[in-house]
């Protein structure tokens, strides 16, 4: 489960060592944009050592390496892969070929390290117009791809438009990525909301992303983590309704009925599937049914 993913600069020891205390389901140790070229080596070592010595139980580690058109990405993987991150976030992914190139090198390292194939997942970061148009091909380019990730800042620069809080300029990219990811059977994560002080704005933005079908949302500020977790967690009403659905289905089966209505609405396969997803997530979060 990755409701929230918090970016942490790879060159900031204080943030890195406290990364597992900030409440997000996953942290993204950033070796790319947050780190200047002069600090790439130091950040890589710092992130590697943080992964080696710190206990991140309950918080998945994702590492954003540098893009494959830079001289850094292989060295990033050389240092990071032995620590078994949950996912590698691959920036500036524009084509299926980019994914395959990264996949090939990760496969090579996995073999050297004696890891089972696809131990480390890949999450292409879609942040160019080309990437958006190729989203489905990217999502299906390798078995290692577990999710797509939308990066709106670079994308809007590529689109030559202004990034706004309302986000109308990324509407197409958002829906396109959700569609592509779901068609490919992988998860999809929304871009961070960048105004750290706008509590209402992050709530609206996260709620909208959830409504579109995103699995979770990234954040550049620990202050947004709580809101994102709340938005992407099932509500008590959703949980209760899901249990009612499952109860009704069980009753229908017991009575030998093929179809059953709940609150005047026929329960069909998609409703059951959604109820199952909600209950699975609620159980993972330790949430239960309301007491009657």
């Amino acid at each position, binding site marked *: 489960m990755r409701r929230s993913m918090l970016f942490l600069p790879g060159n900031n020891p204080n943030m890195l060592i406290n990364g597992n*205390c*900030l409440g997000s389901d996953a942290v993204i140790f950033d070796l790319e944009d947050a780190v200047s070229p002069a600090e790439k080596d130091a950040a890589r070592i710092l992130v590697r050592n943080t992964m080696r010595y710190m206990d991140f139980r309950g918080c998945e580690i994702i590492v954003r390496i540098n893009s494959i058109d830079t001289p850094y990405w292989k060295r990033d993987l050389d240092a990071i892969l032995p620590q078994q991150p949950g996912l590698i976030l691959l920036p500036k992914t524009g084509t299926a070929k980019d994914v395959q190139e990264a996949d090939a090198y990760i496969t090579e390292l996995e073999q050297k390290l004696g890891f089972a194939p696809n131990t480390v997942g890949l999450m292409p970061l879609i942040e160019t117009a080309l990437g958006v148009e190729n989203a489905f091909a990217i999502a299906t380019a390798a078995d290692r791809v577990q999710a797509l990730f939308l990066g709106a800042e670079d994308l809007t620069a590529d689109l030559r438009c202004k990034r706004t809080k309302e986000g109308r300029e990324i509407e197409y990219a958002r829906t396109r990525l959700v569609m592509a990811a779901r068609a490919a059977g992988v998860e999809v994560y929304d871009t961070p909301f960048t105004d750290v002080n706008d509590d209402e704005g992050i709530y609206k933005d996260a709620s909208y992303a959830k409504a579109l079908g995103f699995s979770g949302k990234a954040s550049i500020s620990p202050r947004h983590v709580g809101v994102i977790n709340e938005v992407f967690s099932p509500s008590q009403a959703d949980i209760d309704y899901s249990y009612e659905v499952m109860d009704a289905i069980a009753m229908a089966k017991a009575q030998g009925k093929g179809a059953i209505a709940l609150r005047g609405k026929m329960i069909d396969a998609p409703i059951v599937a959604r109820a199952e997803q909600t209950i699975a997530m609620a159980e993972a979060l330790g949430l239960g049914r309301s007491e009657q």
Partner: protein
Amino acid sequence: MDTKLVKSIREAVQLSGLKSGMTVSFHHHLRNGDFVLNMVMEEIAALGLKDIFVNASSLFDVHTPMLQHIENHVVTGISADYISGGLGRPISQGILDKPVQFRTHGGRPSDISLGRTPIDVAFIAAPTADPMGNCSGKYGKSACGSLGYAFADAMYAKKVVVITDNLVEYPLQDFSISEDYVDFVVQVDAIGNPKGIVSGTTQITRDPVGLVMADLAAKVIDASGLLKDGFSFQTGAGGASLAAASFLKDIMLKKGIQGSFGLGGITGYLVDMLHAGCFRSLLDVQCFDLKAVESIRTDPRHQEISAMHYASPSSRSAAVDSLDVVILGATEIDTDFNVNVHTDSNGYIMGGSGGHSDTAAGAKLAMIIAPMFRARLPIVTDRVTCISTPGRDIDVLVTQGGIAVNPKNTELMQRLAAAGLPVVDIRELKEKAERITGKPSRLPKGDRAVAEVIYRDGTLLDTIYNVK
């Protein structure tokens, strides 16, 4: 007598009968903006007096001119509840022959009232006074709000001098300290620098780790069973403590809980809680910011109290005895929950108990908020450098890495675990931090006592030795 006004501080010192070997006292409501202590000590030095004992409720960096008086043997002894690093460091290096006596905000007035620490002349910095000595901290250009720590000095000193930069016509209304205690009044241009007296605003932390701790702290209070109508609360002015108060406010409003009182050093955040209906009143021994000063001046629910009323163990009762929850800080805490707020990890004096051990002793739940490490040093240690507050009075430590409950408080431990909060053993927190920082080796202590930590009941709690 139609006036107690004298021409100068020097004249007041002379008329008070102060002689070498005597004791003078000061209060610290003007904090790091105070001019009065330095002005008085300069006159005492100029008059050629020596061997003076200074009993100050707290000393700040603004008071470093005292170092000169120590070197010249004008000052040979100090009692204070808090000493910041500017004076603390040289004291730790052994500048004074006699150890400093550290007391608490409750222990100091207790010892004064019991005659254990007699004061010959008290000098009271007063933001407003009339010519007969009625005075207040609520008005004037140097307004500081409450004068809580000065009451014991006024009531028990043999002679009392009020020093003001806002002399008003007799009688001053809404006075704090009344003329019947005052012998002399001096008017000066300025008793302090307003910028150092109170902060414009005190801010909650923006540090993500501080916010995590504050969120946990509020949840601990919520789960403690104490958060119900009539709840009483004290917190410090540190960023994480204020953030905890802010989160607590949200919980109280959501649950419709009206507490009885907020206590202690009062900030704008507690004033906001009063206005929001979280408390019926504020009991204020010291104001920390302009909002608190404005509130104590205008809102009758915001009540000034003396340090005796606040925390004295020899009062018939003190507000700390009715306190439900206090949030406190620590420079170190050991695995027996003893807390150090007097020295840094290297042994240099940089603080003091203030009301730490008074509120910890009185409150039903005494909580420490501290990060797992500061400046690469773990906060949880095997043994604190100095015991400021004994572990028996501390109930819980909140860090970003988990919550450690004192094993003596089994009920709290069960309540927090039932609420799903991350309760861990304090030794686990220590080990967790040491895995990151390594185990720091201790600096060797000197063999000369530079300060004695006197507990609120007058007994010796610990001794601080010089740093080599």
